[in-house]
């Protein structure tokens, strides 16, 4: 009957109530969490990790996922790469008046499915509806809380020369899949977003591998920007080998056509880690055995550590090195 979201769905009255009861609570199964204005989580907790992200992806549905799945995986991954075990999420929806209700359902179901798969609970939510034209369809914010039991295992301060730099698979898949789905530049391909929750894989890694210094998920800004940030933050110089970085052919092709550099394309299901060289092979084996890490590779190593370090270098196929910087400005297709 109601086919679109109207402003009345966001006014806190009867329609809001119905939306919450019939869509959100049913999908997320958090009936027990709704009697107070906050969800109450039973403790005790040792340390906890908290992270937040808003998702504004356009289009909302894309090969390999949708904004709902992305909103779950993105926040789960930020918790997981911080060394935490993701426990709960909150979800804040900002919806444009007129947004199709079936699409909202699809997105919410997709969130619920991914949360279940990742073993986290969506415990609190919020819905705002804004005037047509005040938002582009649907934005979602998720905030995640993770549990850190025992001592925090990530010790970036122990990074030292010779540590291995690894990536869990091919880069640029999400960026290219969105570019194609957007249909603005005429790009056609079957590249799927890599959008996935990495927490189970990371959990295994943390349990079995000693000497993991730091982990990141190279999202906006791509692998290059993520590594530059690691280098600056932890005063280490890293050299990656251009040829070692796994990149799908179709991603290469798309970049060649449009003049992009895959090192700067977004990923949504990849793990970058710096690990003690002694554990490098063990980590690689473990990753390669996991479905999300079959193409994991060692892509470089830490070449210096200390106050004068802090740069990212890439070794070119002809054996020279050049420096990489973080993304400047924004990605724009290049022609001439």
């Amino acid at each position: 009957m109601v086919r679109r979201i109207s402003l009345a769905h966001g006014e806190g009255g009867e329609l809001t109530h119905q939306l919450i009861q019939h869509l959100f609570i049913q999908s997320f199964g958090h009936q027990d969490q709704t009697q107070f204005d906050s969800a109450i989580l039973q403790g005790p907790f040792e340390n906890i990790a908290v992270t937040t992200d808003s998702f504004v992806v356009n289009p909302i549905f894309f090969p390999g996922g949708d904004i709902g799945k992305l909103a779950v995986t993105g926040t789960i991954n930020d918790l997981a790469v911080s060394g935490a075990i993701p426990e709960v999420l909150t979800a804040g929806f900002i919806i444009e008046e007129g947004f199709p209700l079936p699409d909202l359902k699809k997105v919410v179901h997709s969130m619920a499915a991914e949360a279940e798969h990742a073993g986290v609970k969506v415990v609190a939510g919020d819905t705002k509806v804004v005037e047509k034209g005040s938002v582009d369809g649907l934005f979602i914010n998720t905030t995640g809380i993770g549990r850190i039991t025992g001592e925090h295992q990530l010790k970036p301060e122990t990074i030292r020369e010779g540590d291995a730099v690894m990536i869990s698979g091919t880069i640029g898949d999400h960026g290219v899949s969105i570019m194609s789905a957007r249909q603005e530049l005429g790009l056609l391909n079957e590249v799927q977003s890599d959008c996935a929750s990495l927490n189970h894989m990371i959990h295994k890694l943390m349990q079995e591998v000693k000497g993991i210094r730091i982990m990141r998920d190279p999202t906006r800004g791509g692998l290059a920007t993520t590594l530059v940030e690691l280098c600056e933050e932890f005063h280490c110089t890293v050299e990656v080998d251009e040829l070692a970085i796994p990149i799908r052919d179709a991603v290469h092709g798309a970049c060649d056509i449009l003049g992009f550099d895959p090192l700067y394309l977004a990923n949504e299901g990849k793990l970058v880690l710096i690990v003690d060289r002694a554990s490098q092979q063990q980590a690689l084996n473990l990753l390669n055995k996991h479905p999300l890490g079959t193409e994991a590779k060692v892509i470089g190593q830490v070449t210096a550590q200390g106050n004068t370090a802090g740069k990212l270098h890439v070794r070119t196929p002809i054996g020279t090195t050049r420096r990489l910087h973080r993304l400047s400005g924004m990605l724009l297709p290049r022609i001439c």
Partner: protein
Amino acid sequence: MCLGVPAKVIKIEDDHALVDVMGSRMYVGTIFVPDAKIDDYVLLHAGQAMTIVDEEYAKESMTEWRNLLDDRT
């Protein structure tokens, strides 16, 4: 100037063709390469095929260069 990439012709329609670059595809104009055929490679620039790649010449060129390098050592 003039970023160009070789692309394989997959399908031809009037003055347009579907081309493939390692799995990424695009519809491009073929007005400047009226002789392009399916399976040809064309050089793609700003949405237009600008020339057909002569594969024989490319092979020759490569062989010649390899020979030159090998002779050198």
